[in-house]
């Protein structure tokens, strides 16, 4: 225990703590700028300087380790002068006209309108007005003028990348974004360029973020003290009046997030306790307020779509369900709340409907991250964990006290293959053989094109360490590994475990192929339809791309209260941030109304018919002369209620190209496919048309697509490709 004196007050501290940490704990305020509690201290802004008795110069308290007997002063005249000096210098590079303008009070009172302009001249023109740490510091230090020449960097605002803008003209070089990206996220996209007065924050070779491995997680924006890094959507809506803690349902991790709202708008979503990913950070607010969202009940009357009242729509639904009760099929998205799923289950029950199906069915077990703590080796199979599960990856790293080694086995390249300690790239379809080889010593080596040296490296690595195999079951199928090795299945969808627990395991294809079904109820699902139906009921937020009879506008998760179950088996709460837009209502309410109105009595409840569920669409892919290309199908994890995010928000398309078919450059050359050209992918019983994206992440002589039910249920299989006239 160390005792030191701060401002004549004796305080206790532990060895290794800094003076700033101790002062904050004791309620002694020391102003800071480049300091952030989640990042290593930088000591660069010189605002947190303190005087230590007996030391010749003031020292930055954020980096000063406590010593027994230290006598510290935090608020002397000299320190005030130096803090003002440092801030005045920082402001000599930052448009400060409004900060020291004598008319500032009047201006705020009478000119409420935010001046959206191309160049940020001052606070009034900045999206972060009233939320800026520089404004707070200027107030605290009482700065009335800046006696230095003003230097405007005159850089172009960077707007090329999706999701967020970067205006480095107002950057104060605090380095928080750099430290966040390097230390916490591990992506190392940002760093300082040049030195001295030319110093700037940027990417390697000034490349656009899309080309640098940026995950667009938005963590840099969350720590930026000024308006330099800002969300593009919602930038000008205003200062939020509330911040609602809820759970993101866009993938199975179910991160806690905060929805920041003003009146009836969701401005943006930000992390709560743990880091999140691009979906939760940039995919929610624009989705809630999407211009294509339909928020009124609609019915088809003749050949027109007509807006109707809820009553009429619900009446119609009930009458059809009653008439066709034995011939109804229900397909739903797991991204509903558990309460909604329960209502669906009960509805299906009361309808004696045996055809209840959901996307992403799988048999997976929950796992506890707390059990993973010692030095471990992670083998990740066919799953780009950075693209799809980055918050989980970060938490895995945190749990491990020692070193975490990541071995990736994947025929397809991606974000995770670039950062892996070792990337083993087998021929597509040979993953099982490779895993076999690693874990079991066999005399005859199966051909997987992986060198013996690499296999030996992994085997040696595994000695004496815990090993976990992580995989998305959709992409790999059943993986068999020795008993001692723990496998962690990563289903991509929220509530996957709940659906499994409820025993819902009828595959969607089975429902869609069922000739008996005449009435199809789609709840958050938009699968490709194979036949015509008497009745198509759609309960969703966006219109499907085919004909339907009635549309019931559903609320998004930002507009409801409920709960969801995540990949660890935990129940997490979803909280309403705004009232549902327009006439939309929660799925739970809609289903409850239908159930209530149906009031169906009748046959006793029978056991849901269980059929052996086909868990996976994966199988080993060969090729033939007619079909020389291997089609690799991966699950698209960027989906909400059946619609790929890329279809709704252009940023996701640019980031992921998951609505393109990925082709290796040599394969593209061979088949004369140009980047962006529309190609047809033709298999024995399938045909797809999509634009091409040329990347060497796709293996040679293969193409990769990201599957979701709206393009049909396609297995990995041999295909051929043909160019259409583009």
């Amino acid at each position, binding site marked *: 225990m160390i005792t030191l004196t701060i401002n004549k007050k004796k305080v206790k501290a532990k060895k290794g703590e800094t003076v700033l940490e101790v002062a904050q704990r004791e309620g002694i305020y020391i102003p800071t700028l480049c300091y952030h509690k989640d990042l290593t201290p930088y000591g660069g802004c*010189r605002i947190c300087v303190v005087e230590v008795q007996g030391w010749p110069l003031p020292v930055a308290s954020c980096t000063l*380790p406590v010593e027994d007997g230290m006598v510290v002063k935090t608020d002397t005249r000299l320190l005030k002068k130096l803090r003002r000096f440092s801030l005045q*210098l920082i402001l000599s590079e930052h448009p400060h006209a409004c900060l020291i303008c004598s008319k500032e009070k009047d201006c705020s009172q009478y000119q409420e309108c935010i001046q959206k302009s191309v160049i940020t001249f001052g606070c009034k023109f900045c999206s972060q007005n009233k939320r800026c740490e520089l404004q707070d510091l200027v107030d605290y230090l009482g700065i009335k003028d800046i006696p230095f020449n003003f*230097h405007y960097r005159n850089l172009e605002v960077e707007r090329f990348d999706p999701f967020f803008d970067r205006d480095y003209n107002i950057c104060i*070089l605090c380095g928080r974004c750099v430290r966040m990206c390097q230390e916490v996220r591990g992506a190392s996209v940002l760093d300082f360029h040049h030195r001295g007065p030319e*110093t700037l924050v940027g990417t390697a070779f000034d490349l656009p973020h899309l080309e640098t491995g940026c995950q667009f997680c938005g963590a840099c924006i969350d720590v930026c003290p000024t308006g330099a890094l800002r969300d593009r959507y919602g930038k000008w809506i205003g200062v939020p009046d509330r911040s609602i803690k809820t759970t993101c349902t866009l993938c199975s991790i179910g991160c806690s997030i905060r929805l920041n709202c003003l009146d009836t708008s969701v401005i943006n979503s930000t992390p709560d306790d743990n880091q999140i990913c691009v979906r939760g950070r940039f995919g929610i607010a624009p989705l809630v307020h999407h211009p294509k969202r339909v928020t009124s009940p609609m019915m088809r009357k003749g050949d027109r779509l007509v807006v109707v009242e809820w009553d009429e729509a619900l009446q119609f639904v009930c009458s059809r369900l009653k008439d066709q009760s034995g011939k109804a099929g229900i397909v739903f998205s797991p991204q509903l709340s558990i309460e909604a799923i329960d209502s669906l289950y009960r509805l299906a029950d009361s309808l004696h409907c045996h055809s209840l199906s959901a996307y992403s069915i799988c048999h997976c077990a929950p796992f506890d991250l707390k059990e993973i703590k010692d030095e471990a080796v992670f083998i990740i199979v066919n799953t780009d964990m950075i693209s799809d599960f980055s918050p989980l990856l970060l938490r895995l790293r945190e749990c491990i006290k020692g070193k975490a080694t990541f071995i990736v086995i994947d025929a397809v390249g991606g974000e995770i293959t670039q950062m892996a300690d070792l990337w083993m790239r087998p021929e597509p379809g040979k993953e099982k053989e490779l895993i076999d080889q690693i874990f079991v010593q066999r005399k005859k080596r199966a051909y997987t094109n992986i060198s013996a040296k690499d296999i030996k490296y992994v085997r040696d690595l595994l000695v004496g360490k815990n090993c976990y195999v992580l995989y998305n079951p959709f992409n790999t199928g059943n993986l068999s590994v020795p008993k001692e090795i723990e496998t962690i299945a990563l289903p991509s969808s929220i509530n996957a475990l709940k659906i499994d627990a409820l025993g819902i395991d009828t595959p969607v294809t089975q429902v869609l192929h069922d000739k008996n079904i005449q009435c199809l109820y789609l709840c958050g699902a938009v699968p490709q339809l194979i036949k015509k139906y008497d009745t198509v009921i759609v309960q969703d937020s966006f219109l499907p791309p085919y004909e339907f009879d009635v549309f019931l506008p559903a609320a998004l998760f930002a507009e409801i209260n409920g709960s969801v179950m995540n990949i660890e088996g935990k129940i997490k709460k979803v909280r309403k941030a705004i009232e549902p837009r327009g006439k939309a209502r929660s799925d739970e309410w809609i289903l409850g109304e239908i159930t209530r109105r149906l009031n169906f009595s009748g046959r006793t409840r029978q056991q849901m018919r269980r059929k052996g569920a086909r868990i996976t669409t994966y199988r080993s892919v060969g090729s033939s002369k007619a079909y020389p290309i291997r089609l690799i199908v991966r699950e698209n994890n960027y989906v909400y209620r059946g619609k790929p995010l890329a279809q709704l928000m252009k940023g996701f398309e640019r980031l992921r190209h998951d609505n393109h078919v990925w082709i290796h450059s040599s394969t593209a050359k061979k088949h004369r496919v140009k980047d962006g050209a529309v190609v047809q992918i033709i298999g024995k019983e399938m045909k797809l048309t999509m634009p091409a994206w040329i990347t060497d992440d796709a293996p040679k002589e293969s193409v990769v697509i990201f599957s979701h039910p709206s393009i049909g249920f396609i297995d990995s299989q041999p295909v051929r490709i043909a160019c259409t006239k583009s």
Partner: protein
Amino acid sequence: MAKRSHKKFRLHLYICAGTGCVANRSLEIKEELIKEIARRGLKDEVRVAITGCNGFCERGPIVVVRPDGIFYQKLTKKDIPDLVEEHLIKGRPVERLMYRQTPKTPAIPKMKDIDFFKHQSLIVFRNRSRLNPEDIDEYINYDGYSALKKALMHMTPEEIITEIKASGLRGRGGAGFPTGLKWELCRQSPGKTKYIICNGDEGDPGAFMDRSVLEADPHAVIEGLIIGAKAIGAEKGFIYVRNEYPLAVKRIRIALHQAEKRNFLGDNILGTGFNFSIDVVRGSGAFVCGEETALLASIEGRVGRPRPRPPYPVQKGLWGRPTNINNVETWANVPVIILRGAKWFSSIGTKGSKGTKIFSLVGKINNTGLVEVPMGITLKSIIYDIGGGIPHGKKFKAVQTGGPSGGCIPKDLLELPIDYESLTEAGSMMGSGGMIVLDEDTCMVDVARYFLNFTQQESCGKCPSCRLGTKQMVEILNRITEGEGREGDIELLEEVGKNVKLSSLCGLGQTSPNPVLTTIRYFRDEYEAHIQKKQCPARVCKALISYVIDPELCSGCTVCAKNCPSDAIIGEPKKVHTIDQSKCIKCGICITVCPDKFQAVKKMSPVIK
């Protein structure tokens, strides 16, 4: 004591192969000498060898003939046949190649009689002009590695530290921290893995002391490092050299290789069970990497940006381990202290500053070069006795010590004894040893601007005080030198300078205002002349001067008019010429070409309207 095999030679020619003389083709002279000696059949009688920097760079290329110590300077290839014929064969040293103070004074044949050399005291440069840096045996013959044997076999680590502490040796890199104390703190820091580092980043403009030590006597530095490693308990050392010193890097690498072969480095050194090895790391072109925490970052492969201290490197240094960093010159002092004793070493110098210091004496001085002098010698002695005074009869104005981190010392303080404390009190600092002499034709405001420009470009950019504070100061100085100085500028410079000193993160920022603050302190009148009268008293700042032709002295020879690049000079032959101020670009060609007997072109300040 000469090598046994060298006994057969009656004459040894040591050719200076420091970077300065090499750039002046000294190696070509060496080849020519070898050829000529062979041609004249003297191969078995006369030995030709290279040696490191002699210090008298003004007079290079230099050859010293031993055992008599005859000093030849400013040699060219054409002089070789004469040298061989007259001196080597006939035994008549060649007078015209010897040193003369002025062209009219008699030649001084022996090195030890030349003023430049005779006032110096050599400790670090003890093997000057008699040692081939690429031959370990020559080093050993001059008691090389004897200190190492003594330290490893007859002293404990604590005894080594006590000896260094008692000697009073202080860091020669600039800060002057007591070396023995630093070693003790490092030794006492908990942890089994420790590192020692030799800082050879030498970034001060005009400083080349460390470079010359590394080129001339790399084994002295290596021996010091090994002794230090033993004292502290380190098994790994690094020599960090700036990449702009390729010859130094080459010589160190050769020396390390030779030392390893003789078991002075590596495992089980001299059978004592002590293991130690050294790696060479090259810098990448940043002045700030001379700062110890930035240097550590650079060795670790990270960007060279300083971090706040504490914790100090002796507590948490390279890769978080206790690390002792010392300057090249400091390390070179260690073997001789161990061998001859702390008592002897502390008998040289002043009360607070023991031993000698190497200075690079440059600028407006007759004898430019490197000098090693005992602490306590006066500035006057260095400049006049050793340096030979100011050339062209100009008046001394100030001497700038400590490079961009130091300050200037005016004429009134010339009797100042050189010592860490006295220089700091005068507002300057010892620094790494740069000593730039300035005369009446130097503008002090321009000097301040030059140094501040340098530090601003080399600033790492982390803290606003240095990154932006120096920039604001440079802008003010630019305005002043361009005739746009305003009332209050001097006070602003002082205020900003003081604040930058107090709030900067590292030594670069903390000392960058020194040139400005000292020039204001001692030459405030020059600043005021620039601002109030728009006058540059030294007539340097282009915006404040005019070139004029004195009608009393001009003879109308038309040389200036013919050479003027902007046709600004008007005049008939044999008639007085005039300069059209509206066209004059102040390039100074007219002053240069005007024949010495006329010297009719003058500079005037303030400008002529």
